[in-house]
């Protein structure tokens, strides 16, 4: 067992710790690889065009956080505390943005609010390219993440507190501020930090719709791709690591407190119908849903138009990806391949790793170190990871050098990039299992691997399926880490969206983006059906 843990720990060291060290040391070196101390940092802070990006990134992220969390909270409030109709539908729509790359909303915004935008009048002459566009895109992109967290926080409300408030004659408003809000505060804070981190590290939206509004994430890309200034790219990466790291740490602390709140014995709250309140919430959910569907619908519309805005006939011309930048249809198939590998290998790796940490005995230092490594990817922006991989894997001295430009390195980077959430899902599932299963099994002289396959895996199957779909969807949509790593035969659909947009082929970019959406949506539905089938078969014990 120790050996297994060692192997997976080695994976995390090679795929995470060493590359991060490589990027760190690069930031202290000059172009010729000589150590220059803080010279690169000094240059950075003496270049106003670069340091402005810090301010820009923070501004964008804070505004996005406020808007996204507010929308998510009001929507979650409606979904959990009102008796409005179509709750299920609204929830599904609100979660849809998870299935598309963060580049897609930006593309839609060009068609909606650009020079030739369908509804550009709504902006009252403001320019969509820049902070406005970025914020709208990021709100779209982060909304589901915030919603999930806040829904969870609201769902643990204790009905008895509401009864107490009622018996003390507290009005609705007072109850909201004294019971609802405090109860959800950790969820709100946690959602805030998650949105903040997602926004400040996102590269897709500012790339597509940011115009000349520079942010840290696009600076890294520009430094590395545009100017071949890898050292400066490393410096910006580490600066981006800072706010992401802080946000991550605060979030972890909040999560822990939230768990403590959860363990209290609560009585579930059942909302009571109230015509006016339910209608307000219904209207609000409708507005949010229209916003999301409009973004998607616009992209699909744009993809099918021959030559917007001068020739509005429908055509499939924009699907001739082979005639454009980005690697053509091959990149779509590559993305599918990447997603499958990531889902399979990632799930196995993550689940085994979590199993070792949770069920392993002794070797405490090693296990806490492993736990730390497993949490780290969440704090590392994809771009930073991707750049770190260039430094580490493309070094001629590295025996793993052969991985460079292969599908394998894309799989490794994607698994690593999304390791933390998958790991936490696995750990939560394992924690819910009786800790004595292994003791009983060993008293019955059963080897641990038999108990693992016969008990642990079947019991955790829902979580395992969740992990695999999470990894699949993210492998389809991710741009940030892989943008530095794809090779001649491993271009990806998400990167193709970026490159086609970059080359001005925005309609094909929208078409490819929608292909990713349809793929993820189908896989999601398939996953739903499949897990329902599998669950019925293997989880019949759950029902009494």
């Amino acid at each position, binding site marked *: 067992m120790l050996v297994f843990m060692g192997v997976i720990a080695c994976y995390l060291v090679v795929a995470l710790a060493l590359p991060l060290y490589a990027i760190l040391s690069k930031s202290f070196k000059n172009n010729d690889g000589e150590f220059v101390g803080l010279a690169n940092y000094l240059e950075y802070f003496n270049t106003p065009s670069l340091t402005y990006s810090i301010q820009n990134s923070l501004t964008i992220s804070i505004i996005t956080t406020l808007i996204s969390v507010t929308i998510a909270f009001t929507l979650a409030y409606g979904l959990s505390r009102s008796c409005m109709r179509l709750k299920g539908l609204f929830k599904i729509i609100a979660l849809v943005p998870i299935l598309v790359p963060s580049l897609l909303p930006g593309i839609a915004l060009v068609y909606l609010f650009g020079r030739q935008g369908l509804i550009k009048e709504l902006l009252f002459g403001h320019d969509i390219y820049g902070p406005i566009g970025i914020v709208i895109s990021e709100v779209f992109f982060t909304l589901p993440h915030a919603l999930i967290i806040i829904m969870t926080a609201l769902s643990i409300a204790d009905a008895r507190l509401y009864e107490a408030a009622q018996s003390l004659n507290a009005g609705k408003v007072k109850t909201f501020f004294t019971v609802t809000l405090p109860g959800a505060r950790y969820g709100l804070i946690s959602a805030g930090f998650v949105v903040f981190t997602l926004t400040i590290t996102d590269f897709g939206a500012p790339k597509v719709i940011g115009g000349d509004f520079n942010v840290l994430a696009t600076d890294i890309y520009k430094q590395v791709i545009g100017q071949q200034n890898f050292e400066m790219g490393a410096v910006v990466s580490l600066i981006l690591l800072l706010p992401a790291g802080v946000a991550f740490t605060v979030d972890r602390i909040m999560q822990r407190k939230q768990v403590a709140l959860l363990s209290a014995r609560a009585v579930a709250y059942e909302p009571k119908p109230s015509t006016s309140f339910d209608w307000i919430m219904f209207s609000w959910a409708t507005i949010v849903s229209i916003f999301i569907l409009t973004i998607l619908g616009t992209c699909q519309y744009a993809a099918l138009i021959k030559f917007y805005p001068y020739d509005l006939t429908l055509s499939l011309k924009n699907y001739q990806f082979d005639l454009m930048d980005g690697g053509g249809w091959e990149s779509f198939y590559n993305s599918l391949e990447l997603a499958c590998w990531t889902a399979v290998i990632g799930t196995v790796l993550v689940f085994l790793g979590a199993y070792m940490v949770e069920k392993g005995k002794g070797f405490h230092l090693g296990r806490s170190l492993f736990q730390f490594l497993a949490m780290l990817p969440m704090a590392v922006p994809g771009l930073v990871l991707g750049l770190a991989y260039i430094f580490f894997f493309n070094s001629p001295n590295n025996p793993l050098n052969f991985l460079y430009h292969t599908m394998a390195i894309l799989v490794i980077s994607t698994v690593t990039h999304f390791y933390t959430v998958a790991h936490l899902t696995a750990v939560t599932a394992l924690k819910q299992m009786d800790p004595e299963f292994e003791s009983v099994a060993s008293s019955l002289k059963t080897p641990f691997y038999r108990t693992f396959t016969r008990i642990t895996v079947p019991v955790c199957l829902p979580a395992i399926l969740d992990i695999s779909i999470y990894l699949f969807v993210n492998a389809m949509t991710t741009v940030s880490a892989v943008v530095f790593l794809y090779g001649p035969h491993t271009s990806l659909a998400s990167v193709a969206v970026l490159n086609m947009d970059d080359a001005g082929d925005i309609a094909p970019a929208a078409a490819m983006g929608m292909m990713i959406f349809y793929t993820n949506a189908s896989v999601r539905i398939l996953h739903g059906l499949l897990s329902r089938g599998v669950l019925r078969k293997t989880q019949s014990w759950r*029902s009494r």
Partner: protein
Amino acid sequence: MSQSEPYLKIGNLTKRFGDFTALSDVTLAVFEGEFVCFLGPSGCGKTTLLRAIAGLDIQTYGTVDQAGRDVSSLPPAERDFGIVFQSYALFPNLTIEKNIAYGLENLKQPASKIRDRVAELLQLVGMPEQGKKYPAQLSGGQQQRVALARAIAISPGLLLLDEPLSALDAKVRVKLRHEIKELQRKLGITTIMVTHDQEEALTMADRIVVINNGLIEQVGTPEQIYREPATRFVADFIGSMNFLPATKVSKNKVRIGQLEFSCSDAAGSAEITPDQPVHAAIRPEDILVGDASSNYIDATVDSIEFLGSFVRADLSSPQLDGLILLADFSANRVRSENLSAGSHIRISLPAESLLIYAE
């Protein structure tokens, strides 16, 4: 019960978790076929001791010998025991049958033999019809029976029970107590049960090991533990006990308040030198009405608490410098003596029930 060579020998066993010493130098022998209870407050180390015996948490040092074999450093799978946990730890995704057969399947027995054995065990725990169900479909008591059947399926030499009844409600608990004890007697399997419930220990165990702060306070039969608690802790922990500040006068004499009483010289009180301050202890039910012994005093009933089959009275006496004595009287006695708050009665503290502990 063979008294020749112990089946299980625990020698100088110590377990530390970091700076915390959970068990300190524990030595104990358990004989074949015996039912032993580890009793103590939570955190006293009793579960740690059980887990050390099972090999689930290996001791820091010390030895465990089972059936003449040194198993001190063996992993659980190479030891010979079955275990039942408070949570039952039934595999939720396997049927009852599969749960019970789980250990058997490892022994490479033919399927028919396993089937027969499972049926036999289901019969044994009184659930012959429930084999196809899943654990979640059973009540707590039924789940505990399945856990028991699973533990004894591979016919282990030692059965370990870790608080097996504490998750059940009171009535089921009492019923299962008998069933487990009955089963253990029938199978003759050496059994160690960890519990914090003294009633459970007193009714089920052949011998009780009282543990406190990682140390064994006393080992003895339930009778011995109750009647002759070796230490003040045991006296206090098991049942109710009046503790009265006193001074030892001579070997069999003690002064409480202004009076001298004869007392038992058991419980190692011989080592206590005269004039040393001590505690005199007596159980409420040992206080008798009337002057049946020479140790009698006159007391006032301050209050009476009705507890069903008996009554607990708060007694005080000027001769005892205002100390309060708790006394249990049967309901009949209360009626016949017509006791109520404010009554004056004479009570006696029989010498053989009056125990002395150093301060």
